C-alpha cells in the first residue's frame, strides 16, 4: 500500500530531520507514530503527501513513487490521501458544508467549484458524514463559530470526503482536552474500520496511542527506533525513544 524507502529530509543541508526511513504501511488499522518533539514526525507525515518535499528516497503508494510526481499527477495522488491537522486547518470563513466539500476539490473541476456546483452525490455524502461525526444540523455554520472538538470533526469529515485510500493525521488531538481527544481517536478508528484503510497518526499522548493503535512506530533523532504492537512498548523502549526515565513513573 504505502512503502517508504530510504526517505530522508533536511531543511538545512547537512542537518537531516529524517534519516533513511524505511516503512511499510499495509492493510488497515491505526499506526501511531510517537516520539519527542522535533524528531521529524510531522515532517514524515507531510513528506508522504508532499506538503514537504523529501530530500531523497522513494514514497511508493500503490506502486507509484510519489516523490517523482508533479502537477496533475501529484494532485491525483493527493486526492487519494486524506489529511487531518493538529490545528484543524479549516477555512475559517467558509461554512461547515463548504469545508466538507473542499474534500471533493480534487475531483470536481475548478469552474464547477467556483460556482459551487458540486455533484448531488457529493452533497448527499457530505450530509451523511456530518451525521456520522455528530454534527448534523451544523452544515450552514461558519467554521470559526465551532469549538475545537467540533472543528476536528469537520477536519476528519473533510478528509473522508476525499474517499481516501490512506488517511494521515498530524497530531489530531494535541489541541484538544482528554475527553474530546478520545472521541476524536474513536472517530479515526471508526474511519479506519469502516473504510478499511490504513490511518497513520503521529501523536504525543503515548497512552492514547497504546489504547487505539494496532501498531506503534517510535522515532528518535529522525530514525525509526521501534516498530511493533502496542503491547511491546515497554518502559525500556520508551526510555530509548524519549530518553531519561524520571518521567515514566512517580
Amino acid at each position, binding site marked *: 500500500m504505502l512503502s517508504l524507502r530510504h526517505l530522508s529530509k533536511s531543511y538545512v543541508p547537512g542537518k537531516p530531520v529524517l534519516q533513511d526511513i524505511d516503512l511499510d504501511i499495509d492493510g488497515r488499522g491505526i499506526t501511531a507514530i510517537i516520539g519527542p518533539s522535533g524528531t521529524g514526525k510531522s515532517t514524515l507525515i507531510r513528506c508522504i*503527501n508532499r*506538503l514537504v518535499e523529501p530530500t531523497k528516497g522513494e514514497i511508493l503508494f500503490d506502486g507509484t513513487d510519489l516523490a517523482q510526481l508533479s502537477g496533475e499527477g*501529484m*494532485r*491525483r*495522488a*493527493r*486526492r*487519494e*490521501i*486524506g*489529511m487531518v*491537522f493538529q*490545528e484543524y*486547518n*479549516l*477555512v*475559517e*470563513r*467558509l461554512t461547515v458544508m*463548504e469545508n466538507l466539500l*473542499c*474534500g*471533493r*476539490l*480534487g*475531483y*470536481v*473541476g*475548478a469552474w464547477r*467549484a*467556483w460556482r459551487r456546483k458540486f455533484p448531488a452525490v457529493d452533497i448527499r455524502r457530505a450530509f451523511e458524514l456530518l451525521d456520522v461525526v455528530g454534527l448534523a444540523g451544523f452544515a450552514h455554520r461558519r467554521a*470559526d*463559530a*465551532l*469549538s*475545537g472538538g467540533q472543528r476536528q470533526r469537520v*477536519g476528519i469529515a*473533510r478528509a473522508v470526503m*476525499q474517499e481516501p485510500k490512506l488517511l494521515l493525521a498530524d497530531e489530531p488531538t494535541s*489541541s*484538544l*482536552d482528554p475527553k474530546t481527544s478520545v472521541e476524536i481517536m474513536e472517530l479515526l478508528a471508526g474511519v479506519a474500520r469502516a473504510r478499511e484503510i490504513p490511518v497513520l497518526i503521529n501523536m504525543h499522548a503515548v497512552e492514547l496511542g497504546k489504547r487505539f493503535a494496532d501498531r506503534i512506530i517510535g522515532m528518535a533523532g529522525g530514525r525509526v527506533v521501534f516498530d511493533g504492537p502496542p503491547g511491546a512498548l515497554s518502559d525500556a523502549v520508551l526510555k530509548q525513544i524519549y530518553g531519561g526515565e524520571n518521567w515514566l513513573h512517580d
Partner: protein
Amino acid sequence: MTSVPAAGDPFARSWWPRVGLLALAVYVVYACAQMDISAERVETGLENAGHFFGRLFPPNFARWELLLKGLGESLQIAVLASTLGIALALPLGLMAARNLMPAWVSWPARAVVVVARSLHPVIVAILFVKAVGFGALAGVLALMVASVGFIGKLFTEAIEEISLKQVEAVRATGAPFFSMLAYGVLPQVFSRFIGFATYQLDSNLRNSTMVGIVGAGGIGGTLFAAFQRFDYDFVCAILIAIISLIMLGELFATGVRAIFIGNATLADLFRRGAVQRRDRLVEDE
C-alpha cells in the same frame, strides 16, 4: 531585612524628543516669517473671506439641470472607474502576492501597481486629457489607474497576510490551483476586499468631482467654470450638491459593508441602531 537597591528613575528619559519638538516650533515660526504669514496678512485674508462667503449665499439652484447633468456624469465616471479598475486590480494584486506566486510573476505585477500609485490622479487625468482628449473618457481612465494602484496594493497585502495553514489543507485535498484560490485564499480576504472596494468607490466619487477641473468630465468642469465667472452662488449650489452626493455614497458604502462584513440583512439597515458589527462567536479552548 534584605536591603533594597536604591530606587532609580523607573523611566528611561531621553532629551532627544524635547530637542526635536523645540526645533519643530522654531521652524514653524521661521516658515511663517519666511512666507510673510503675519497677523496683518491673516487680517486682510479674513476680510476677503468674509466678502467671498457673503457672495456664496444664498445658493442658487436656478441652473439645476446643468448641475444634475454634471453630477450624473461624475457618478458615472466613479462607478465605471471603480468597476473596471477593481476588475483589473484583482488579478494584478493576486499576481503580486509573493506568498502564492513565483518572483518572476510577482515582481512585474508589483511594478505595474507601483507605477499606478505613484502619480496623483490629477496629474494622471491631465495626461489622459492630452492623450485621449477632453471628456469623461479621460476621467474614467485616470481614476481607473488610481483604483488599480490602491486596490492592487491593498489586495496584495491582504493576500500576503492570510493563514497558509488553511491553504495547505485545501492543497492537501488535491485541489487544482484555481479551486485552491476559490476555497483557500479568497474566503480569507473577501471581507477586507469589500472594505477596500467600498472605500475606493467613495474615493473615486470624490475624485470624479475633481477631474473635471482639468477637463476630464464631470461636475468639476461646471464648478471650475462657475468659479471663473464669479458665479459664487452657483458655486455654493454645486458644493452643496457634491457634499450630498458624497454623503449618499458614504451611506451606501456603510450599508454594503454592514451586509457583507457584519452579516446584516437589508432590513437591518433600515432599523434604527441595528447596523453594528455582530460579535463573532469564537469559542477557543
